């Protein structure tokens, strides 16, 4: 790949990630379900990790995290680290499970979402931001996890159509 092509591709990826960010802050953050807002950047990073493997997941996670931090990070750098880890974990999980059923990615992302939110509290508290564990787990982690996993199904389907899957044959999708 020539440097020009490489730069064009990077620009396209950055533009797409900014688009995801804007959809989150401008649309999804205004549509809470039981008070919880979904986290589209998180879902996209996890899904790309699942579809493209750890190295790509890590790269996209770091980029998306950095953009999220620039847009409105309370603790700049935290989203970069956490979303990088999410992409890495998504890619690692993809090597361990059978993903051809749409409910499998939804279940994986539910688990990743809960871990991500718990890590978020831990890191925020390590830097003295004082998030409560008890109320937080019940009233934020659980509803956010449910909302994220519900949104995973359309996001995974769209990403699968757009990206396909690398190093594997074309997948089949079913709900059962």
């Amino acid at each position, binding site marked *: 790949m020539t440097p020009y092509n490489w730069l064009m591709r990077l620009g396209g990826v950055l533009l797409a990630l900014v688009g995801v960010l804007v959809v989150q802050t401008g649309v999804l953050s205004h549509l809470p379900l039981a008070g919880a807002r979904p986290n589209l950047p998180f879902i996209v990073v996890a899904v790309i990790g699942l579809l493209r493997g750890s190295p790509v997941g890590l790269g996209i996670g770091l980029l998306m995290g950095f953009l999220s931090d*620039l*847009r409105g990070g309370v603790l700049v750098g935290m989203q970069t680290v956490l979303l990088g880890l999410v992409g890495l974990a998504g890619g690692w999980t993809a090597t361990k499970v059978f993903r051809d059923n749409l409910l499998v990615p939804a279940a994986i992302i539910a688990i990743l979402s809960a871990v991500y939110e718990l890590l978020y509290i831990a890191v925020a508290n390590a830097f003295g931001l004082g998030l409560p564990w008890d109320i937080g787990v019940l009233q934020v982690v659980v509803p956010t996890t449910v909302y994220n996993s519900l949104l995973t199904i359309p996001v995974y389907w769209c990403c699968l159509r757009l990206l396909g899957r690398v190093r594997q044959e074309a997948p089949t999708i079913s709900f059962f």
Partner: protein
Amino acid sequence: MEEHQRWRSFFVGLLVLVLLAIMFVTARPRDSLTPVERAFRDVLAPVEAALATATHRVRMTVDEWQMWRDVREENRRLRRELMALRAERQRLQEAQRENIFLRSVLGLARETDHSLLPAAVVARPISNWWSHITINRGRRDGVQARMPVLAQGGVVGYVYSVSERTADVLLLLDPKSALGAIVNRTSDPLVVEGVASLEGRVHARALVAEADLQEGDEIVTSGLSQIFPRGLPVGRIAEVIDTPPGRAAEAWVAPAVDFARLEAVAVLLASDGAESD
């Protein structure tokens, strides 16, 4: 190959160290954003504003459609007439709400010798842990950090970071938020703190042991916080928390503002003689 691995480990280590350093620096409260953050927010703001407006309209349409369906099921015969009346009433309510808001804004501006700058909510945070909003007014409109933000009903929060065209407002609900308040009935002083919860309530802690808190009590700002003027409505006590004898009373407060449907706010600009931060 081994050298490649070594370089990769070095870069990953360096990246982690840099990110930890940035996190350490930004963990402290800060009034101003970095130039990169400011520029990024200003570039995204118009797109976010357009999307937010479209989302509000769609949501309103969905709400109205649901209402219309309920009415049809309840009384098919009066559907047409009811729809016309409802549309008319909605227009009137909107005008009345606007009228009340503008009157309160005018009254408040006269009372506090401050001027109010209307603003629209253009973005909300990604994470559920924090409660802040982005408004479409920034430094070029005269907005500065620590300016109070109000909406119809009462206090919304205060501005905590500003870019050229936007400002981030820390809501009362945010766990980092705390403001001085009093019980309107007794003048007992309180601290009202945000909690990381999705229930939309805030926590109030009395500052005197003998404070008398009762359900329904109105809470207003005390004027001691150097941010909010005295007497702005904060909310009403929704539930008094049982505390052991000798400990100051605590309560859950239902905010005066509906944060879930916040679309328009007003920034209380400093008066001509007021000092700015």
